[in-house]
């Protein structure tokens, strides 16, 4: 493969912007930060002051493979991630069949390698066949390469099963990722219980749906001295519960999504109940949205994820009530967030935002992947170039993903990833830029 030199970049190393403006990659590894002597006979990538960041890490995406491949598969998903600047994505196991045994973990890894685009790491189910009855073979799946355990799409069905899984995995196995949802409050729900449910009559999903399960998980983590990661937080109350649990010293982490940070229930109302805004957990109040930003600011929230939930347009393009939940966002999520922070003048530093999609989520992966999410000598050359001035209109028809619709379709956003490298290989470039 040889050497690549990146010159004239603002380099973000996972924590901060560093003083060096160049780095050298040899084969799949970053060998030098700050080019010591000008090399010749190499490939040069000229930055012109653009940002060079560790490749983005998405701890939560759905690829529908195996079983529902007309909506997305590992190949289209891996390319979609690449086009979105993501170099590593964690695949949720709620496929058909569910990823709950070692051979299926290997299936995801094998196809991910063949895709030759972004890296897809599998999460395994907590329970066998994701039925919520008994624990799956968690240790065998770890050995095969599972990086989280989750029954995502559903919460771990009973408190007893969650307690056992937390005990069993302890501090040395992949984390339990909980989809926080108290089922009896969720049934039939369509939107946030609040303004949007009052105006539409659609059945509301109260904030308590999420908060009760977060409280359960915290309580069981304390009980078992285990560790838990809550995914796609949407409510102010959940953020506060986790803030307190962290203060207490429990090993509790969490993420929220690009769409919960940038949209709220008013988007659903103003769209006339357009199904593209239908997502679970639902887009909540502006108060909840603000609490999520506060959680980012004080590091209560560890990561920002896409919860990329692709549906073929024939399935998603239905009246609100008849459409499935889910927003597909891999290919525009970064731009959505950068554009939002820019236009809304949030006081969140760019370094902090970038850390939530690089070093911070990387730190939640198993030992083997601890070198991801940072730029340092010796780390894997997973890199993403960001152009903060690039403006593009979101055009789902050009997507790599098979899900050709999203809430931002037709909207001009500023601030895009423009080139993506995995292990030193260029896997995607914005052709107008490079």
């Amino acid at each position: 493969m040889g050497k690549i030199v990146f010159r004239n970049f603002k380099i973000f190393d996972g924590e901060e912007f560093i003083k060096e403006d160049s780095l050298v990659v040899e084969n799949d590894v970053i060998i030098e930060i700050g080019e010591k002597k000008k090399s010749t006979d190499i490939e040069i990538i000229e930055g012109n002051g653009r940002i060079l960041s560790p490749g983005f890490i998405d701890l939560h995406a759905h690829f529908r493979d195996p079983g529902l491949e007309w909506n997305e598969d590992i190949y289209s998903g891996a390319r979609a991630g690449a086009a979105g600047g993501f170099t590593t994505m964690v695949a949720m196991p709620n496929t058909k069949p569910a990823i709950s045994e070692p051979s299926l973990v290997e299936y995801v890894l094998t196809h991910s390698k063949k895709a030759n685009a972004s890296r897809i790491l599998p999460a395994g189910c907590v329970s066998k066949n994701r039925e919520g009855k008994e624990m799956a073979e968690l240790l065998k799946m770890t050995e095969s390469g599972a990086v989280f355990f989750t029954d995502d799409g559903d919460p771990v069905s009973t408190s007893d099963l969650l307690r056992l899984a937390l005990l069993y995995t302890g501090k040395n196995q992949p984390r339990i990722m909980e989809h926080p949802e108290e089922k009896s409050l969720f049934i039939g729900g369509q939107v946030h219980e609040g303004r949007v449910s009052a105006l539409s009559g659609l059945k509301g999903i109260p904030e308590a749906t999420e908060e009760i399960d977060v409280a359960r998980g915290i309580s069981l983590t304390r009980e078992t001295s285990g560790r838990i990661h809550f995914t796609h937080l949407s409510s102010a109350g959940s953020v506060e519960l986790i803030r307190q649990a962290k203060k207490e010293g429990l090993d509790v982490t969490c993420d929220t999504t690009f769409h919960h940070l940038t949209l709220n229930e008013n988007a659903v109302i103003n769209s006339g109940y357009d199904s593209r805004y239908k997502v679970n957990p639902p887009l909540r109040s502006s108060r909840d949205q603000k609490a999520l930003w506060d959680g980012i600011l004080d590091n209560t929230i560890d990561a920002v994820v896409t919860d990329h939930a692709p549906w073929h347009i024939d399935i998603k393009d239905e009246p609100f009530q008849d459409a499935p939940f889910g927003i597909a966002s891999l290919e525009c999520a970064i731009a959505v967030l950068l554009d939002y922070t820019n236009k809304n003048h949030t006081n969140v530093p760019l370094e902090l935002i970038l850390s939530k999609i690089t070093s911070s989520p990387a730190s939640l992966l198993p030992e083997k992947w601890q070198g991801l999410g940072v730029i340092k000598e010796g780390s894997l050359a997973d890199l993403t170039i960001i152009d903060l001035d690039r403006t593009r209109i979101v055009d789902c028809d050009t997507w790599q993903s098979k899900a050709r619709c999203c809430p931002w379709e037709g909207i001009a956003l500023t601030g895009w990833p423009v080139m993506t490298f995995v292990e030193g290989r260029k896997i995607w470039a914005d052709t107008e830029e490079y």
Partner: protein
Amino acid sequence: MNVMPSETGQIVWRHKNVIDLAGWSREELYFILDQARHMENVMDRPIKKVPVLRGKMCVNLFFENSTRTRASFELAEKMLSADVVNWSSAGSSTAKGETMRDTAWTLEAMGADIVVLRHRSVGAAQYLASKLKRAIVLNAGDGTHAHPTQALLDLYTAWKHLGNLSGKKIAFVGDVLHSRVARSDIIGFNTIGCKVVVSGPPTMMPKNIEALGCEYENDPKKAVQEADMVYLLRIQKERQQDGLFPSVDEYHKWWGADKNLIAYAKPDALVMHPGPLNRGVEIASDISDGHQSVILEQVRSGVAIRMALLYLCGGGK
């Protein structure tokens, strides 16, 4: 007709479709009511037909059971000389798995000019309108969201009796949570200047009810106090099975409209109900059939209002 409101004047009709009443102005509402008055005159003629929609094709696309609303639209369309096709979900290709957008495009290909849609899903009318290239959509009820023609016929009925509605008080009692009638009526009566109070079991009230522009009063007697109009909302008996209230008997005792409750309203207050009635649940027979009841007038108003909307949206140019 008591009063011709000064608000009524010529306005530029800007609505292609009728999806819901959010964002409609008071002037527009009065304008429609005034148009409905002319339409009601047609209903009294020996030959109930005018050629306003001659040569236009109306499709009544009903994905949910409805007898009265569909009949009301059909009568309105026929009195305006439209050609009418009734397309209901039973026996249609929907049963064979056809999507609504394919149904819509099929109807448009057949030459439909106006589609009247009743659908169980919130936002269905808006969705259909976004898929049709030429035909217009009148919403005859989309899930729990909106039923704009019901709200307009209620406004028309109230206006005929009370004249200018500004400052008048209306109390809605019953299941607001699941009611598209309540949602559209609250917006309509609010926009036209009424004070709107709602009452009913807290389990059948939306959270953030103030977003609808009304206040909630738990005690129905206080809610109807000095009201000019008392509007009873239909209680679907399956809500009791859902556990939202313990028994029909308890509901009727607490929230049902009987002589005792109506006595708290103004002496000549109008008693309204969207139909069909659940006698002995949300309303006692002596009230529904009593001298204050305008329930059958509401039914008649429905035809006039729908004629007015069909004329304004479908053939008025």
